[in-house]
């Protein structure tokens, strides 16, 4: 199945040669005989569906996992990377998919973790040196970050910048970036791209992983595609475009990425007026009608999640009304919201979504015990049946409803959560970044599902940072900026440029 690598890519200035890499996690063959080469002075994109093995391959390169078989050569020298320290020594630096910082330490301490400059005495660390060098590094790459700030006080975007600086500090010859832009704002993304190009010019080899294929096309020189743990394609970007990449990833054409929906919009279901919250939502008002999908756009930190949290009762409201189907709600906690017919698919399924050690069925029924007649007693047989049906409706791939939730891949975990909320029979559903970090195939399924829910007459609020999907699926787009609603646009009558302009422009 391994496509032979184009000779040109394989041999010219090979910076990295990973040959015949296999890795098994218990029953899962995460990687099978993967051979992967990169050149110095180029950006090599690594793409594939969720669970294809991208992160695993790169963690092997970073010394986190040991391959079951295969060999690694860096700049022509065979390497055994038994732990991250050795990988760093060999010139490999990685930005991990999940934030990877010691939050109680300062920015400078994180950046120099593991390689502290020595102080005036032996066995000591020079705080002064660390801060000075951090400042220099940030200036060099044109990032602004206070070296002495504690990481726990930073925003997610700033944390990502610390991650980037940490990997740049190491003077690595190979830098791996595993979905680095998933929590960056547009502006920071642009800066990151500049940095990547700068590094390429300096002759580094960059391996870039992302589910945002537009980024790949914009940035990469070569593209390798992983599917089910195997390397199925590797080619120069000049020969590729998005549909071709998608084809290699999923093994078929993805027609109908944004399926058409018979818009059947009814009366107003949800009305929000004058909503402000302690978390920074300021005087927001909008309405959503039956059968309508309303998108919500904004830069990172614009306060979209905070609106969802205020409506769902997670953050305390300081003012405002929420009216659902004509009834004014007094929601003070998620339990109230769910009882009133609101569902929220949170943006972070690991932190606020799933109880990962528990069986899938328990996660599906968790908010629904009352709805399915198990308010005072649980009937395991009935629960099993209900969960199995709910899972089947969403085509969740699992060993059965009793399987532990952490045995599912990310995309399937997302589907599990959707199955949960479908069971709740809510009239108004909020989806906060439902496609973040999931692959194109799974995205298409989520879009299809949103459409079906709308057709069933639900009102949907769809929060997303990716304009194409908002434009592909929403009837209207709300634009947020700094906690305020600054635009309420009909999708067909606006353009991405207008939305971006509204989201980004400074107020004065």
């Amino acid at each position, binding site marked *: 199945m391994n496509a032979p690598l184009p000779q040109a890519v394989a041999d010219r200035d090979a910076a990295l040669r990973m040959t015949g890499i296999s890795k098994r*996690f*218990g*029953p899962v063959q995460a990687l099978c005989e993967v051979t992967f080469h990169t050149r110095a002075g180029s950006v090599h994109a690594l793409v594939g569906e969720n669970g294809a093995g991208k992160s695993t391959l790169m963690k092997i390169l970073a010394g986190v996992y040991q391959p079951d078989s295969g060999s690694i050569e860096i700049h022509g020298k065979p390497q055994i990377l038994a732990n991250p320290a050795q990988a760093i020594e060999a010139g490999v630096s990685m930005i991990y998919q999940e934030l990877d910082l010691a939050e109680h330490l300062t920015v400078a301490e994180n950046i120099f973790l593991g390689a502290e400059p020595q102080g005036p005495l032996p066995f000591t660390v020079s705080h002064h040196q660390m801060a000075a060098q951090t400042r220099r590094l940030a200036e060099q790459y044109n990032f602004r970050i206070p070296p002495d700030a504690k990481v726990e006080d930073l925003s997610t975007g700033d944390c990502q910048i610390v991650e980037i600086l940490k990997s740049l500090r190491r003077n690595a010859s190979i830098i791996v970036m595993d979905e680095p832009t998933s929590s960056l704002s547009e502006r920071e993304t642009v800066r990151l791209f500049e940095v990547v190009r700068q590094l390429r010019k300096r002759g580094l080899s960059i391996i870039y992983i992302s589910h945002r294929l537009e980024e790949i096309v914009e940035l990469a020189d070569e593209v390798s595609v992983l599917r089910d743990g195997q390397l199925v394609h590797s080619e120069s970007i000049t020969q590729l475009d998005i549909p071709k990449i998608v084809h290699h990833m999923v093994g078929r054409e993805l027609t109908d990425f944004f399926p058409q929906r018979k818009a059947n919009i009814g009366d107003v279901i949800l009305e929000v007026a004058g909503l402000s919250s302690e978390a920074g939502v300021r005087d927001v008002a909008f309405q959503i009608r039956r059968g309508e999908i309303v998108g919500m756009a904004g830069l990172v930190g614009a306060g979209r999640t905070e609106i969802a949290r205020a409506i*769902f009762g*997670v953050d305390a409201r300081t003012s405002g009304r929420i009216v659902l189907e004509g009834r004014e709600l007094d929601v003070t*906690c*998620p*339990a109230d*919201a*769910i*009882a009133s017919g609101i569902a*929220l698919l*949170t943006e972070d399924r690991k*932190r*606020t*979504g*799933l*109880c*990962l*050690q*528990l069986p899938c069925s*328990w996660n599906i029924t*968790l*908010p629904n*015990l009352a709805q399915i007649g*198990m*308010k*005072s*007693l*649980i009937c*395991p047989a009935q629960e099993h049946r209900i969960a199995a049906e709910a899972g089947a409706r969403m085509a969740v791939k699992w060993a059965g409803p009793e399987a532990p939730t952490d045995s599912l891949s990310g995309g399937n975990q997302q589907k599990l959560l959707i199955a*949960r909320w479908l069971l709740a029979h809510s009239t108004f559903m909020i989806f906060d970044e439902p496609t973040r970090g999931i692959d194109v195939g799974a995205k298409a399924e989520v879009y299809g599902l949103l459409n079906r829910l709308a057709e069933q007459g639900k009102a949907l609020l769809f929060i997303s940072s990716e304009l194409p999907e908002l434009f592909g699926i929403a009837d209207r787009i709300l634009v947020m900026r700094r906690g305020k609603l600054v635009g309420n646009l009909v999708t067909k009558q606006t353009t991405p440029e207008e939305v971006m302009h509204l989201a980004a422009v400074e107020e004065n």
Partner: protein
Amino acid sequence: MSKFVRQLLPFATLAIIVAALAALEPDTFLTTENFLNVLSRSSVNGIIAMGMTAVIISGGIDLSVGSMLALAGMVGAGVMLKAGGPDAGAAAMVLGTLVGIGAGFLCGLLNGVLITKLKLPPFIVTLGTMSAFRGLSYIINNSKMYDVPTYTFLGQSHLFGVPVSVLILALVVLFGFFVLRYTPLGRYTYAIGSNREAAFHAGVNVDRNLIAIYSMMGLFVGLAAMIQASRTISAQPTAGISLELDIIAAVVIGGASLAGGRGTVVGTIVGTLLISFLRNGCTLLGISTNIQLVVIGAIIIGAVALDQIARSKAEAS
């Protein structure tokens, strides 16, 4: 399959220990009386361990159980004596028993409220109340104990040939099993311990459930305190010193995880009996208390290490 094996681990260990003791000391160990003795002395720890199981599954811990045992016992016995004097009759004893159980419940409630309303780690809150409850149990009768010579029912009498305390333990185990497995409270306990934020976002009233769990813990401790008082026909302010670690050890040997989300009633009771039979067996075999301490330490570490290995094997296969 392998997961099944893993869950059987504590049983297997218990079975092996009992079988070995039966083989080594058939005359003294393998008697109904000895078994009933061991069960009866496990009743106090077993009942408390039931409550601790729920607390640990919820991701918490309760270090105050030993002091709470002393306090509830002192309050219960004190009321019994006030109401009925040294020859307290049935009414006074029932009253004292209920008040003692109620005192335990209130202690647990206090823990629960402090943990949820001040948003403090359970370790800290119960470390504090551990000291405070102990102080109170001394203060109540000026550091002295209470004698309740007539209070023999719970701890010393038999029904159908079985000690009453053992029957109560059995009831509590059944109750705990039922609650954790078949009620929303039980389900929410697992969910909160597994991922508190997620449980909250799924509409679980986390605070209310935690308060319920800690209150139930207190209630069980109150019950255990009265059994203990009846076993020694006296309530002692020094009762239960260092008890918390014994209880936690039993729950952990039974397969619960201190990180929360994992644990079972059956595992816990097996863990409790395992420690009791081990102690009893060592004494019958003439192995000194000192060596018992080393053995029990090794078993705690060994049980959890085996569990860990079994788990990673289960994942690998």
